[in-house]
């Protein structure tokens, strides 16, 4: 009786706001530099929610401005005031590190649509934390594996001097078996790579691996193409994503990059996703959009089975990952990070639009290197 009474009161209270049963908090970057990534994740995520036809899911979206302190406060707001059941959305590793540990510690589920810092995959893993994108090292490892497969033996490697950059070079070196002709850390936010390109030219390398997210990658590729150096370049998908390829232009043509997703992966889910995304938003979906889309579908699949208030059941439902991923096969490893195939893609031009085409598999059913350290 008391329980029933409580339920009616709660229902009466909720009626004034919205008739939702599941509340999802999304903190992502929607303004300032890097907003493109957050917008893609949001759009992909919301597309899946809309397609599910469920009107009992409420998504609260907030803009973190790519500032860690803002993200932390928004997460406090999500947990304390909005009382969300599940959180998602963060793009950047440093923001994730600031937010995720305390959020999952408070009993909220967190599904990462983009960032996968190594700490959260290894010792710092948590039963309520699921990564739907990749562990940060994955695409770099794939690049190293690809370099082996095409016989590169002397790579010049380069990344900004910050933790994700240092991880990128470590990730590449983990599987790459050749020698290094140079290893350079650039400044974060650097826009001119003339000095590095000169070093590459002088290094005698047979391949260049770089990790330069966002505008840094655009600048590097344009300058590299103009420098006349013709050593082949490989990199993770971040610098060749749909959102920025148009700004790189011809300079990116033919470059091989590694990604767990591409719009030409042949499965019905993906084909439908690419088509509906384009219809809805008038642009081709990016890697980030696919990750947002997958995250939402994973979530919905778990909601079909269990309610988030029943933590253990819901967690098991998430772990099962019974959803149709745009990537095809998708499953979670013991540390709740994906086990998935990573492809090598090449940048091509389709009509007026620059995009990617899969040219091969870099790593099959690949898990991350930190799972062993995770005690869950």
């Amino acid at each position, binding site marked *: 009786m008391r329980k029933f009474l409580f339920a009616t009161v709660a229902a009466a209270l909720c009626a004034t706001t919205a008739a939702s049963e599941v509340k999802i908090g999304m903190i992502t970057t929607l303004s*300032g530099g890097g907003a493109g990534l957050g917008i893609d994740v949001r759009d992909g995520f919301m597309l899946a929610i809309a397609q599910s036809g469920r009107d009992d899911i409420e998504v609260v979206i907030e803009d973190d401005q790519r500032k860690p*302190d803002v993200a932390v406060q928004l997460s*406090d*707001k999500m947990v304390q*005031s*909005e009382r969300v059941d599940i959180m998602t959305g963060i793009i950047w590793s440093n923001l994730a590190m600031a937010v995720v540990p*305390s959020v999952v510690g408070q009993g909220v589920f967190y599904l990462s649509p983009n960032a996968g810092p190594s700490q959260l995959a290894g010792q710092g893993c948590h039963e309520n934390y699921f990564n739907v994108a990749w562990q940060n090292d994955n695409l770099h490892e794939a690049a190293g594996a690809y370099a082996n497969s095409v016989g590169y033996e002397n790579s010049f490697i380069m990344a900004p*001097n*910050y933790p994700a950059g240092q991880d990128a070079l470590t990730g590449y070196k983990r599987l790459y078996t050749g020698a290094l002709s140079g290893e350079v850390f650039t400044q974060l936010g650097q826009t001119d790579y003339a000095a590095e390109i000169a070093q590459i030219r002088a290094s005698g390398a047979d391949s260049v691996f770089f990790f330069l997210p966002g505008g840094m990658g655009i600048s590097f590729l344009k300058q590299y193409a103009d420098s006349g150096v013709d050593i082949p370049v490989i990199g993770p998908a971040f610098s060749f994503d749909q959102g920025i390829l148009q700004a790189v232009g011809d300079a990116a043509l033919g470059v091989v990059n590694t990604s767990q997703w591409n719009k030409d992966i042949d499965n019905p889910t993906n084909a439908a996703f690419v088509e509906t995304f384009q219809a809805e938003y008038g642009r081709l979906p990016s890697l980030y959009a696919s990750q947002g889309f997958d995250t939402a579908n994973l979530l919905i699949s778990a909601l079909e089975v269990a309610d988030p208030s029943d933590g253990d059941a819901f967690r098991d439902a998430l772990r099962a990952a019974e959803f149709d991923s745009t990537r095809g096969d998708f499953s979670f490893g013991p540390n709740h990070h994906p086990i998935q195939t990573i492809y090598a893609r090449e940048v091509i031009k389709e009509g007026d639009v620059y995009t990617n085409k899969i040219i091969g598999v870099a790593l099959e059913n690949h898990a991350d290197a930190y799972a062993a350290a995770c005690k869950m």
Partner: protein
Amino acid sequence: MRVKEKHVNALVIIGLIALPLFALISDEPFTITLATRAVILALAAVGLNIILGMGGLVSFGHALFFGIGGYTMGILAYHAQTYTTLDLGLFATGGTEFMPVIWVVAMVVSAVLAYLIGLLVLRTSGVYFIMITLAFAQMFYYFAISWAQYGGEDGLSIYVRNDFPGLNTLVPIQFFCICFVILCLVLFLKARLQNSPFGLALNAMRQTATRVETVGLNPMKLKLLAFVISGAITGLAGALFADLNRFVSPTMFSWQLSGELIVLIIIGGVGRLMGPVIGACIFVALEHFLSGLTEFWHIYLGLILLGIVLFARGGVIGLLTGKEGAHV
């Protein structure tokens, strides 16, 4: 209607007590977090206002001390939580999670840095001072980004707040109380300082350094001490801010943050005791409400700031009291 400045001040303090209490009753803990953020930013700006408002020197690099305070807290707590030793060359310590100790260390480190940096930067004035303070903050910013041991760009998470005897600091209202009491204490000390012989001399120094010299005082020493006090208070605020977020990162050193601290002061009113407090409350409120309205809220924030500079000289306090007040 014109009101007296002290009434405005009293109203602000009452508001700052009432809002979190109201939030507590209506169970809106996030409002308390917002109020705490405002209080801490206000504290940092009160520190900046000593050198900027009283001393007339526009420091565009005060985020440096904010960041130093934050990192002091982060490093001490990190070593305490991981049971590792912090080797300082001369001696090694185990870090600490005890707030009062962290505060003292943050203030001392900030003060020592302010002294050393002040010796150099206070030789310049005007625009050069603005720019050289900016340069020092940028140096620390880039250093923090590449300081891998403490997280570099990723920053350093400490997961739980540090301890204060008798309180559970993770409860928003209790942490708010700590910050609020510190702010009141610092405001009280600042009020004393403002009227003390030192405050009077510093105030005169801003208006005419020549006069201060000809009565036998040393303007450089006055400025240096003001800079040290200013840095120490902002450092303390940095330590609290890091505790609020349970997280430090290089963005605490960023020039945008230095700019925001200046913005807070100007919104409230330069050289006024409560100027930074009012400025911080308004700024946090704007940030919160505008960002809820539109994705492009920075445009509106910019327009509002522009309006304040062009049409409300003397800040909000100046607008309310009808006096422009001290202007640098």
